């Protein structure tokens, strides 16, 4: 028997999902940021890639291939009944770069979390989003022991253009993380204004 509890759902009620990528170096606080704003305890999923990536149709003889498993943490924010926002923490280490293309596809934008103690760990993320044309903001996660740098020092160190917003943030603080998200989405909307299609 079909379950009765699903009978009164209108057939078109499938929400649209959008996603934001949270990138940054190892230990920059990506998962902390996701936890701060997510309505669910962040979930962890994993992707398995073979050496030949998606070019593999079957796994016959897979023992011979190099495989990599990468864990992805993500959270969810239900915007309204029709829109769900997902926040994906991008894997920080170089060997997990194969995931970034898939993560970036169709992404609304990205947050690059910078740890001023190890600013170089987010260089790759900045490069990637610039190259792909994915709009992003830099959020400087303030750690207790971190030296206080001003925005312009960070901008110079990261060599990013004046249009890219840089915000000071505390990944543990929900309000602070909301501000980062607002900054990003505002930046995305502004960037879209000249050639609006929708």
């Amino acid at each position, binding site marked *: 028997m079909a379950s009765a509890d699903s009978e009164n759902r209108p*057939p078109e009620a499938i929400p*649209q999902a959008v996603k934001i990528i949270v990138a940054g170096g190892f230990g920059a606080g990506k998962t902390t940021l996701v936890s701060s704003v997510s309505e669910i305890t962040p*979930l962890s*999923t994993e992707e398995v890639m073979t050496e030949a990536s998606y070019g593999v149709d079957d*796994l016959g003889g897979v*023992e011979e291939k*190099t495989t990599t498993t990468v864990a992805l943490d993500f959270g969810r*924010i239900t915007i309204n009944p029709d829109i769900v926002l997902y926040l994906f923490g991008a894997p920080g*280490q170089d060997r997990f770069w194969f995931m970034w293309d898939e993560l970036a596809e169709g992404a*609304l934008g990205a947050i690059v979390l910078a740890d001023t103690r190890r600013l170089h760990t987010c260089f790759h993320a900045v490069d990637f989003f610039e190259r792909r044309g994915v709009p992003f903001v830099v959020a400087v996660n303030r750690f207790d022991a971190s030296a206080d740098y001003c925005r312009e020092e960070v901008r110079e160190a990261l060599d990013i253009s004046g249009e890219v917003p840089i915000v000071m943030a505390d990944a543990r603080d929900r309000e602070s993380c909301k501000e980062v998200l607002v900054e990003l989405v505002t930046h995305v909307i502004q960037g879209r204004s000249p050639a609006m299609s929708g």
Partner: protein
Amino acid sequence: MNTSEEQRGTGWTGPAPGRPTTGPFPRRPAPSWNRGRGHPTSEGPSAGVGDAPAGSLVRPYTMTRGRTRPPTGPRLDMITIVVAARDREERALEPEYQAIMRLCRRPISLAEISARLDIPLTVVRVLLGDLVAAGDVRTRASAPVTRLPEKKVLQAVLDGIRRL
């Protein structure tokens, strides 16, 4: 008994050595894919994450009969939302499909299915592809990869975040 026969290696359909089959489909006695993994973080590989040994990769793919790609159908990415189709007669499905169907009673993303069942994304993609092909679940027609969300969607997201 006929353990040797079971171990003969008949491709994916063979159960793990020494495990009995109970019906037309090989069934693993315990859903090892559903055992949970604790809560690793993306801050790097925790136990069991990283360069997994081939053995732990092959096992999940027994669910897909070795396929790494779904049958032709709608594009299924991490945030594709799926929901169980109504007016479908309940039919006997293998446990992995049943578990997915249970989660799909409400709209749910592919990534969440993967996380909640502890099945890798690629495997969920194949299994969902089967369910879509059979008409058991529906997906929202996803926008082309290159198309970004419309401005009204962005504005709704902005308003939604402010309301948090």
